[in-house]
């Protein structure tokens, strides 16, 4: 999956770019024909790759300064007038500092703000836990009226941003800043709440989200090549509403299931899947891979991934344990 695949989608989502860059390019593209697209930032236009947007559409960007509560409240006020508002801030601050504004001003009041959590998960690496967002899926899952999306590659990111712009309910989209390979050249469908099967297999199912789908695919290749184990890989880009139909379908085979996420093992994708499966009579062998409940190790995003087994090797090893 390391090679660059040219998959230009309306001149934006070339592959192997950071999802962050695709987000920014997509927003610019949308803003060219839609004056209601408004970006709201908390001194985050640089880290959100939104400087060109601000230069091109100075009337469509609102700078709040470092004040995330106000960022979300103002965004809700703007959205209440019909604006298509993208509130952009590092995921760690957006979903913790401004949680009450997300709960009340956005979700409860149904002001359809598109909350964009940039540099999500452990993207900030060695900057440490203040800058990590390993809680966002968990806390937002418990809030009614919120779609939660973690696009895996450039294609999913572009599609998610386009869909969010036209969606009349609150959406949270989080991604990182690492360059991401294209997951599938053939699977071109994307809608919120529908997982994408990016690799078909017959022995095991790997369900991953966001930037962990790529190591999931890598593990599937290793398992095939080294152990003759054939794995299905699902990009479960929407954490809520979760694709129960797809879950039931992969569970029916009886194959073991591994979930992977750049999030605490508590309250995220894995526990959401487990909850559905166990309540619906599926007893597949099951393993959640994510960041454990501990003081997160210091390192780059990749080093943290490797440390906790969010890597081709780590996932393959876990799969072998489950398939034996």
């Amino acid at each position, binding site marked *: 999956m390391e090679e660059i695949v040219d998959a230009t989608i309306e001149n934006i989502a070339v592959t192997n770019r950071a999802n962050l860059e695709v987000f920014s390019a997509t927003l610019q593209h949308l803003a060219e024909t839609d004056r209601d697209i408004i970006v709201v930032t908390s001194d985050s236009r640089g880290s959100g790759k939104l400087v060109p947007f601000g230069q091109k559409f100075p009337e469509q960007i609102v700078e709040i300064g470092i004040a995330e509560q*106000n960022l979300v*409240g*103002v965004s*809700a*006020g703007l959205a209440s007038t019909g*604006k298509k508002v993208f509130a952009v801030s590092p995921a760690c601050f957006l979903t913790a500092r401004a949680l009450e504004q997300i709960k009340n001003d956005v979700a*409860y009041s149904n*002001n359809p703000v598109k909350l964009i959590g940039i540099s999500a998960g452990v993207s900030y690496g060695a900057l440490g836990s203040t800058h990590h967002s390993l809680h966002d899926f968990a806390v937002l899952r418990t809030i009614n009226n919120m779609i939660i999306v973690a696009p895996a590659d450039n294609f999913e990111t572009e599609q998610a941003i386009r869909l969010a712009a036209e969606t009349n309910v609150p959406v949270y989209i989080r991604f990182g800043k690492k360059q991401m390979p294209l997951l599938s050249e053939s699977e071109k469908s994307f809608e919120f709440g529908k997982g994408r099967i990016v690799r078909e297999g017959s022995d095991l199912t790997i369900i991953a989200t966001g930037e962990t789908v790529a190591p999931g695919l890598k593990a599937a290749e290793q398992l095939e090549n080294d152990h003759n184990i054939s794995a299905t890989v699902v990009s479960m880009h929407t954490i809520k509403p979760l694709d129960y139909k797809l879950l039931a379908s992969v569970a029916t085979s009886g194959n073991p299931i591994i979930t992977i996420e750049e999030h605490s093992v508590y309250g995220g994708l894995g526990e959401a899947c487990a909850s559905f499966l166990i309540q619906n009579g599926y007893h597949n062998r099951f393993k959640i891979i994510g960041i454990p409940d501990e003081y997160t190790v210091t390192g780059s995003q990749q080093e943290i991934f490797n440390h906790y087994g969010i890597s081709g090797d780590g996932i393959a090893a876990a799969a072998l344990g489950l398939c034996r």
Partner: protein
Amino acid sequence: MSEKELAHKSVEYRKKILKYIYQAKAGHTGGSLSCIDILNVLYNYTMNVDALHFDSPDRDRYIQSKGHTVEALYVVLASRGFFPESDLETLCKYQSHYIGHPTRKVHGIEQNTGALGHGLSLSVGTAIAGKMDKRDYRVFTVLGDGELPEGSNWEAALSAAHYKLDNLCAILDKNGLQISGPTHDVCNTDPVDQKFEAFGWSVRHVDGHNIAELMEAFDAVPFEKGKPSLIIAHTVKGKGISYMENQLKWHHGVPDSKQYADAIQELDLLEETLP
């Protein structure tokens, strides 16, 4: 509505606030009575908003930041025809839309509030949108003095001045009491006028129960071009009912039948003295 009509309306509203809180056995009595004259003047004199055109993009907006005094807002909206007043018989009852804080499920309510320190940011966003779209609407929000220590208010106050939102008017219902005591003992925010002025707002003081002063202040908004306006309304918690005035227990105290009857009698007498 004329000043004289508004004065009568205030008495009527006070009776209704007490009636529905008494019936529901729940509500924020003291604060509803302190802000009711402000809401009366806003909805019956100042704001360009009505039930038939509530979806108009040009309507003036009212966002109640001190959401707990929703009973005041409900009785005003009912009298303005947003919903039948009889709906208020269900206040705080099982499965009612008329809960103890503002909710958009009730026609006429702009934003769900109740957690404190949210109304000003919502108002700033709404006012920025008005400027973007070159619409003439104005945004009004009533803040409680007890909620001012919430930091989000000050974040929003900065933005309002930064974006020169002279289409935004906040009214501080300065009744001086909050649930655990006088605001100056709990967390003193005075001199609040100087604080807002330092943040870039234009500030005026009014007697928050003087209809003429409220009308005049709202007529003068924006106080300065390019600045958000703050009206510091000096009010009395429990205003109009002698045994409730400035008494902490009436923050969310509910009158018993004798107290209710006494209060209505007091308001009847007051009404007789009005011109």
